[in-house]
């Protein structure tokens, strides 16, 4: 029997396999990206271009040049004017070009923005530089008590819509985990032009330094258990929307990946496992997947995808509230 077909389709992109490297340092470097490709990763999502950071850098540079300038006769400024500053997205765009040149797998640029204007401008720029698709990282921390969830969602939709209007490549939206109505929002994302959603954004949550009494960002690698939060929503979204689905977070074994594909993910993205074990980890994971498929007599990954989604699984209530009940009771003694 021939080896099972691992190929999959994600937002119209034909991929040789279901493993995608998500935004991490490995995908921001041409050499390690090449190693990912060699290990069987079938697309990469670049580290995010942060709109805020781009603007911050540009404004900082402006402030730097203005700081102390033109205030004393002996020194009209304090820095030489450089031929170019590479501010803003310049470096990022070069990286897009370099990755495009070095890889034959699709390169997905990732944007993290705050305003519709900035999104559209930068999306156009990364696509012009060669990105096959754009991932929008919708990370929004609503702190204003007067802004309702509906208003927040409208603003997120406006941003997606702005990007859709600016580019003609596939656009996927990375959703935050804390949404009141994720399925509804995902559907509306699709309506305004998103081709897929990524479930879920692993935001960098803040931490406190108790000595310095400072708030500090802290990024931790994912654990397998995190995968299951995505699992539920992938299963539901797979049944309730036509969007391409990508999971992110918590895939550390072939079995983890398999579960997400069964639930309905078109691709499984991973970063922590690659960072922990190196790019070659992807090869082992694909081999494990392949072995499972063979052992269970599947011909292809395509057969597998969504076969356990909300509509196709034998016990859908397990994905819903019932699942929660069962998990609770499983920790107590079964009734005699």
């Amino acid at each position: 029997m021939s080896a099972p077909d691992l190929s999959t389709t994600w937002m119209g992109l034909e991929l040789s396999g279901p493993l995608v490297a998500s935004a991490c340092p490995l995908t921001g470097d041409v050499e390690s990206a090449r190693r990912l490709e060699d290990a069987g990763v079938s697309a990469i999502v670049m580290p995010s271009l942060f709109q805020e950071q781009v603007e911050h850098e540009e404004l900082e540079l402006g402030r730097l040049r203005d700081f102390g300038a033109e205030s004393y006769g002996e020194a009209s400024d304090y820095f030489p004017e450089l031929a170019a500053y590479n501010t803003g997205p310049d470096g990022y765009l070069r990286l897009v070009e370099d990755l495009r040149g070095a890889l034959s797998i699709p390169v997905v640029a990732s944007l993290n923005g705050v305003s519709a204007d900035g999104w559209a401008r930068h999306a156009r720029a990364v696509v012009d530089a060669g990105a096959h698709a754009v991932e929008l990282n919708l990370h929004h921390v609503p702190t204003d008590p007067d802004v309702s969830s509906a208003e927040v969602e409208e603003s997120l939709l406006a941003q997606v819509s702005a990007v859709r209007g600016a580019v003609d490549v596939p656009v996927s939206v990375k959703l935050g985990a804390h949404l009141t109505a994720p399925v509804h929002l995902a559907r509306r994302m699709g309506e305004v032009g998103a081709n897929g959603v990524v479930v879920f954004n692993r935001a960098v949550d803040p931490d406190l330094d108790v000595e310095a009494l400072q708030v500090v960002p802290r990024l931790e690698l994912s654990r397998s258990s995190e995968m299951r939060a995505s699992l539920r929503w992938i299963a539901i979204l797979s049944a309730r929307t036509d969007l391409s689905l990508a999971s992110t977070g918590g895939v550390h074994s072939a079995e983890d990946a398999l579960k997400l594909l069964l639930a309905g993910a078109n691709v499984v993205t991973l970063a922590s496992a690659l960072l922990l074990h190196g790019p070659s980890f992807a090869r082992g994971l694909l081999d494990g997947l392949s072995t499972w498929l063979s052992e269970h007599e599947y011909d292809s990954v395509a057969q597998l995808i969504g076969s356990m989604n909300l509509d196709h699984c034998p016990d859908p209530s397990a994905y819903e509230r019932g699942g929660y009940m069962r998990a609770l009771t499983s920790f107590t003694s079964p009734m005699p």
Partner: protein
Amino acid sequence: MTKRTMVVDGNEAAASVAYRTNEVIAIYPITPASPMGELSDAWSSAGRRNVYGAVPSVIEMQSEGGAAGAVHGALQGGALATTFTASQGLLLMIPNMFKIAGELTPCVIHVAARTVATHALSIFGDHSDVMAARSCGWAMLCANTVQEAHDFALVAQAATLESRVPFLHFFDGFRTSHEISRIEALEDDDVRALLDDEWVTAHRGRSLDPDRPVLRGTAQNPDVFFQAREASNPYHDRVEAIVDGAFERLAERTGRRYAAVEWVGDPEAERAVVLMGSGCGAVEQAVAELARRGEKVGVLKVRLYRPFPARAVCEALPASVRSIAVLDRTKEPGALGEPLYQDVVTALAEQRDEPRPRVIGGRYGLSSKEFTPSMALAVFAELARPEPKRHFTIGIVDDVTGLSLAWDRELSLEDPDTKRAVFYGLGSDGTVGAAKSTVKIFGESTDLHVQGYFVYDSKKSGSMTVSHLRIGPRPIRGSYLVGRADFVACHQFSFLERVDVLEFADAGATFLLNTAHGPDEVWEQLPREVQRAIREKGLRLWVVDGERVARDAGLGGRINTVMQTCFFALSSPFPRDEAIALVKQSIEKTYGKRGATVVERNFAAVDRALEGLREVAIPDAGRGDLHRLPPVPPEAPDFVQRVTAMMVAGRGELLPVSALPVDGTFPVGTARWEKRSIAREIPIWDADLCIQCGLCTLVCPHAAIRTKVYEPNGAAAPDGFKAVPWKGGGALAGHAMTIQVAPDDCTGCGICADVCPARSKEVAKHKALDMEPKDPHLAVERASFAHFLDLPQMDPRRVQPETVKGSQLLEPLFEFSGACSGCGETPYLKLLTQQLGDRLVVANATGCSSIYGGNLPTTPWTTNAEGRGPAWANSLFEDNAEFGLGMRLAYEAHGDRARAILDEFRGDGVDPALRAALLERCERDPASIHERREQVARLHEALSGLSGDRPDARALDELTEGLVPRSVWIIGGDGWAYDIGFGGLDHVLASGRRVNVLVLDTGVYSNTGGQASKATPRAAVAKFATDGRSTRKKDLGMIAMAYGDVYVAQIAMGANPKQTVEALAEAESYPGPSLVIAYSHCIAHGIDMRGAMGHQKEAARSGFWPLFRYDPRRADRGENPFRLDSRKPTKPFAEFAAKEARFAMLRHANPEHADALLARAQRDLDEQWRLYEQMADVQRSVPDREEETV
């Protein structure tokens, strides 16, 4: 053919030709010539080619002397070489200039002519430098305008190559070097057309080459030197004709016709003025005015000054001329007259037969003193008098020797078709940048002629800038400030209460005011003086809330674009839409390189600006009771009232000669009288939280936050004054303690609040010091500070000045300087004055510290209640160590002499115990010093009581101060210590004398705008190191330690305050030379200044700035003299560097190159640390160190 025009200043005009016509450019920063070197370095880094197709090699040297030497060598090597300089820099080049001319070597030096320091330094323009170089044998060509600076750079280059005589090409510093003007550009083809390749070939043919060796630079003897000196005469004789030829070729090529001398005026003139430089424009305007009045006058503009074109001068002066005034922009005390005067007199004597015209000579324009057409009219009027003053001055009131001519200050000869605008802004608020951009917009988008000139005040923080713009259909000849403006903009509302911003407003002018007050409320908020000026001059007043518009556009409070747009809307000849398009184009050009965000936000500001622009209906009466503030408070001393106040008010021009000290000696402690109140936020003290650590006052750059510990005396404190019990205990138990801000002197840098370690338990962000908006606190803090000043000052004998806490209870005698907000240098100086201010003598190298320390009108060094305090002097940039050593030698000589006389003074009138005590060595602690001063006072009393005329008693009495130890500190920046003054510093450290050297190391030439020095670290971007410095920072401490008997410390106040305080005290107590190298953060590092002290910790933690002390006394005790005060680095250098723009900008611009440099820098630091660690382990004894006696 339409000629390409460009809008540039004189420096760029000259440098653009100099760069294109040379192969080797040796540079060194000096105001106002630095931009020529900076541009050359930037062009070279960018790979721009000269007309020969090569990228010139640009090298920064350690001094102008070094630059001249390098140029001389490059010329000997057959290269085309140049340099740029001014003032003292030119003086340092003179030895080489004699050589270069003596060897008939073609070369041009471009000089932005600047005042040579005499009774005072001045950065401004006159001809005292070039005149000091006139005997070197160089031809001298003077450009009077920006266009001429461009053209003559080429004419000089052509003429030097053809004649072999080197040329000094000069133009007026600031007035021409920094004036922006529209000029016609010389294209590469024009440049090549004037330069014959044969001349270059001939120059190369004379080079030193082992294939055809020659010897140059022999020593000659009485037998032949003289003849050989005369042998070059024919070359000098040909220069004038060669220059004429070059002018002719330039004219053929460009249509711009010049001559060695040019007559402008009536061919039948009876009176003439002769001068050179930017002042010619003003005289031409006066000539035109007099011609209109039917008077027969003219002006002779001199371009070629050496060789002096005597025949051309006499031929150009009409035979009808009966009287001539020659104006010199320099002063030569003791001479029969200034140089140009003497040259003209001699020329006439040699070339003309009797009856010759009468010639008188006058000085004008020293240190960029204004020279206006009205002054020129006064000179012509003087010439018309039957007995004119033979020697006179114009532009000042000389009520001492009566030399000055009176002139009409009100008269204006502005061209009515030329628009004139004046903009008042705050330093760094973008006003000057916007004005420059306006000049460029007009100069580049229209056929109009433009001129921009910018005046700065003497402070580095919170300074006022005034931009003077002229825009008109005819070439602009006014080389002086705008006197009658059609448009006045005040970009800072607070100026109105301090400055007469409408002084220059013409009748009917437009007045644009940036204010948060709306059109209906603003009138009553204006000082009555401003209201009066608006009504009397019939001004139209417009207001805009620039801050709000800028904030809404996402530009923070940056108002420049808003204000520029309003100017265009109110005062430009363009239709509004076109004007806006032009402003946007200019924004794109200026900010485009910095990224789309900045451009977009500025566009938004343009679009919103006009919505907020409103005209104010002028009421027919004054309203409100606001008045302009007096420049200094009424309680200020007499000199401050009479003299300083005038300068503070911007009216120093009006001071007569008699008001000024004759020898440059000024009273100290004047900064306290200039209340600038520039902070928006000030630190507010929460006394209950305070742990009384003293850090806030230690780090304050302006001595604007202070601590006092005092006995509560029951005196009524004003409401809101805060005090808590002193927690220190000991002798001061029961005392009260107050930390007090000086709200009008604080610059709002926030460093004190940043370093404050005491946090509230309930609200983590609240500290014992928080920065809060000033205005709500101002009244209370003002009254509190006044009360605080009246509280008793701590007696130095009751504290330990070598501890952080102890030192901060002492009075700072360096306060409220004009240094940048957050300056990293001044806290060290202030600390020094707290530890030993009453016996401190400072030799200060030229640089930032001499500017914030000694730039008028007000200065920070001050005295204590007894009238004692630091005595301060600045000599030069290059000689400071020697200067300080000389002071030390003087005190030693006087001390020795006093002791010698006292030693002979036996049994007669002076208590033997007192005599014996005074012959003992005096310790350096406050108590010993105090005791010694009391002994000296008793000695003085005893000596005064001696009967009869005792010459020895009188001699001793004059020298008694020599018996009190003085602490001589030699202070300067790294430019001085590492580069220009290093030779002298090395010698002084080797002298074994008791002098202390404090190097305020910012790692760049901060004062001149951040050029690289040998203290600049590898990988840092600086001017003259645009690609990042490629070599490592010099380890000055290690060099000094090599001597063995020099106390050396490397300190960083923010990294380790305790080590800093101790090191300064140890250096002072060390009876030999000491060197303290102090890490000084600087705005040229591109850091968040508020967090600068915390950043210093990272400097130490990364090994970038290891802290150490080398104390030879430890060797006496059998210990290792070297001690590392830092721990092993724990932070990668790149992490530290990422927080400084000087490193980070290169990482952005050129990541691969930056990473390579950063990696090498890391290796430098690793290697250095290994070396230090080993040193800390080795044994070293220092034999035969002499103990001194005093």
